[in-house]
């Protein structure tokens, strides 16, 4: 959707306001109504509008696990990286109000049930980003204490590689998530190798 803006002077604005008022009152008809619709209204599906609103107001849960949490805080909390540009800077510290869970750090087997409970407490729709090597695959912690990949107990939407990922990488992951929320997910390697249509569906 492309939006172009043209400056509007005050007189024009008043005229438009009056026409909108008339339209709402049902006083516009015929050619005037056609003109108004052509100029001022935008048709879309409800789902698209809803998704557009959702992708631009992600509320991340204020939740850190390990060293990636420091990086996560600099991304979602600092003006330097300014996640507000993507509408995701309002951190919520209760899962009831959040809709994005960023798993920042290794997931230990004692933490896994707690994360699962947090995820279950979040309201639909909700998304999960596995940030860094550890929460995606256990990374270097190939041992008894760490869950080898948080996708063993959670559905995960985006995996961000890195140890820790650069802030740009996490922002890129959030942008990919926004694409996914809009219903046009990035095909990644499938696009590169022209392998679309081979997704495994259960």
């Amino acid at each position, binding site marked *: 959707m492309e939006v172009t803006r043209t400056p509007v002077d005050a007189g024009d604005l008043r005229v438009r306001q009056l026409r909108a008022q008339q339209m709402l009152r049902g006083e516009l008809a015929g050619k005037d109504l056609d003109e108004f619709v052509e100029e001022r209204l935008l048709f879309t599906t409800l789902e698209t509008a809803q998704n557009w609103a959702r992708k631009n107001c992600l509320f991340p849960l204020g939740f850190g696990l390990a060293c990636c949490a420091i990086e996560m805080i600099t991304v979602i909390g600092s003006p330097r990286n300014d996640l507000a540009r993507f509408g995701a800077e309002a951190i919520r510290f209760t899962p009831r109000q959040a809709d994005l869970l960023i798993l920042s750090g290794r997931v230990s*087997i*004692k933490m896994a049930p707690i994360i699962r409970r947090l995820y279950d407490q979040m309201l639909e729709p909700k998304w999960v980003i596995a940030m860094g090597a550890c929460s995606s*695959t*256990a990374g270097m*912690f*190939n*041992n*008894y*204490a*760490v869950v*080898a*990949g948080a996708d063993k107990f959670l559905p995960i939407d985006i995996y961000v590689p890195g140890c820790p990922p650069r802030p740009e990488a996490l922002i890129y992951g959030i942008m990919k998530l926004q694409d996914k929320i809009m219903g046009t997910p990035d095909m990644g390697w499938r696009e590169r190798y022209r392998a679309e249509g081979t997704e495994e569906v259960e």
Partner: protein
Amino acid sequence: MPDATGLELIAQQVRENVADEAVTGTMYAREQATLEVAPEHVREVLAFLREAGEPWENLMSLHGCDYLPEEPRLGVHYQLLSMERCDRLCVKTRLGVDDPRLPTVIDLFPTADFQEREVFDMFGVFFEGHPDMRRILMPEDYEGFPQRRDFPMGGEPVLFTFNEGKFPRWYD
């Protein structure tokens, strides 16, 4: 650390005051003095060292160890500190791996509480007389003692081209 002679003197004192068979050996390596003690006497030895003329009154660390090829396999180390001597002493005991049991030293050194629980958690050494002998770090329903050397590594093997034939792949 007491030097090698000092360590022998301490060992002799322990033999005289506790039991002749209480000390199974001494080791002085890299300026560290280690008194090796039979597991059934470890409590008396520590009690004696705590009350001796210049006492070793602080337990700085209590930890376990697994010497896998050697027998007996498990070891428990007590690191003692004496403020009067300005000195440290390690008391070490060795245990077999089936049903390892030691007397608790929690009444001598209250700091041993959590550390004995950790040794129990990681190595499975049961401390008799401990008021609350249960796991401290791992979940309570965890099975096995993860710091033992024969405990499986866990996690998942990382697949490379040289070892991908060895492990079942995710799509198999």
